[in-house]
């Protein structure tokens, strides 16, 4: 599995090809959302809803062999697309990798201007939540 930096650079390159064409960029993000793995219905609970998002986001995690995996869903396609990017970068990594990650790709692909500041807050909330999960797993494994 390529490291976080490599995956981020891949994403930046993909968005570079789309250039300044906002419409294609948005459609592309939505398509990414369409491809997100289905979210398990039993995880669709209030505890998994992320606050701070204008649209609704559900985020669930599990740990397997020292790696943290994320599953997510949203009621809007654009948000789903954005989460799918975060999952692509962060899912299946160790808690340490997730906690120390610097997600520079978000700014590089110009997300702020496309989704507006309100949704940027939502995106920030999603990242925070993912890191919080990682911190919790790390604390648990240290306690063992």
């Amino acid at each position, binding site marked *: 599995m390529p490291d976080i930096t490599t995956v981020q650079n891949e994403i930046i390159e993909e968005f570079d090809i789309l250039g300044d064409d906002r419409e294609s*960029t*948005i459609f592309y993000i939505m398509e990414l959302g369409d491809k997100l793995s289905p979210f398990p219905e039993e995880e669709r609970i209030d505890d998994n809803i992320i606050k701070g998002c204008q649209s609704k986001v559900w985020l669930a995690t599990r740990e397997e062999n020292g790696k943290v995996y994320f599953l997510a869903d949203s009621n809007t396609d654009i948000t789903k697309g954005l989460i799918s990017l975060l999952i692509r970068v962060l899912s299946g990594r160790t808690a340490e990798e997730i906690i120390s990650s610097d997600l520079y790709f978000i700014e590089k692909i110009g997300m702020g201007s*496309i989704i507006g500041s309100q949704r940027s807050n939502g995106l920030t909330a999603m990242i925070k939540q993912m890191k919080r999960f990682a911190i919790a797993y790390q604390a648990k494994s240290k306690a063992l």
Partner: protein
Amino acid sequence: MFKNDLDQTTSKHIPFSVETIRAHFPILHQVVNGNPLVYLDNAATTQKPLTVIEALKTYYSLDNANIHRGAHTLAARATEQYEKTRTTVKEFINAPSSDQVIFTKGTTDSINLVASTFGKTYIGKGDEIIISTMEHHSNIVPWQMLCQSTGAILKIIPISDTGELEMEAFSNILSPKTKLVSIVHVSNALGTVNPMAEIIQKAHAVGAKVLVDGAQSTSHLEVDVQELDCDFLAFSAHKLYGPTGLGVLYGKRDILESMPPYQGGGEMIKEVDFEGTTYNDIPFKFEAGTPNIADVIAFQKALDFILAVGRHNIHAHEQELLQYATEKLSTIKGFVPVGTASEKVSVLSFLIENMHPFDVGVMLDAGGIAVRTGHHCAQPLMKRFNIEGTVRASFAVYNTKNEIDTLYQWISRIAKRKN
């Protein structure tokens, strides 16, 4: 005295041509995300004609002074212009006299003023206030707060699937216990025009007073407070091509005079003495502190603009746009209009099947098209329709059929994604 030479462009009469009208609005002539701006969020706020923008500049450049107090020339000039707007508002809504026109921060502020003064004085435990399912939050929450503090009861007029008030249900909940009926004249989320005259007549028959939320009606219809016989009318300047943060409360004289003041401070007093203070006459009793002088003065130019174009012309043009847009967008697969009342202003609320309104809004924004998405500050109304929100396109005097064609093309493309 300084004469704004732009006066000539909007004085008296502007011949109705959309291109001429658009020339008065500098903001419309820009490119957004690579496309010419198509501004269809007029129910949220309208754009401002150049005369309004210039008036603000002129005021601060030449006339700035505090009003109603100074002996000096600038103070007199500012006061004269400020009071001139009041007179124009009086004429605009056909109030019997200009001292029944109170300047506020906006519709929300006007409604809160009534709740805090009239409400606290005349509405008590067990009394009833009637609103409707289609109210804006600013015509819900102040009454909930009043009910909480007084023990009064809030009653709701239900609406039909087309987005019209159930008038029979209204008659049924009206009773001698009803002290106030506070209803939106035109729904911001659906565009429905409510039968205000009938509502007022029925409410008066049981001795209730009526507040009309005119935030959306004053910009599209000729609202005549004497003909309607409403007790209060609240509206905002910013939806009438005027500045933000400014609104009007009209009230019947005897009611305004019998109401206690809203806020205490300068301007609203006759004489202050530690033994007791006497309050100023209306409207000043309700205008504590230094008011929003600049915006009031600039609002004059917005009203001049509307009157110069002619409200019947504005209405006719907007109705044509509404009909054109409704027919055209209805041909798109997956297009679902929300709110299909027989009488509407130029508001087109809709959903695209299988798509969230946010997604539609973000995609339209890529095309330079500004619409509103979400619950439109009317969550109980959204619940009534069992939806989270809608996409809302709302048209003003400067919108064109060309712009609706652009909207149509983009919506068609967007809807195809999922339909």
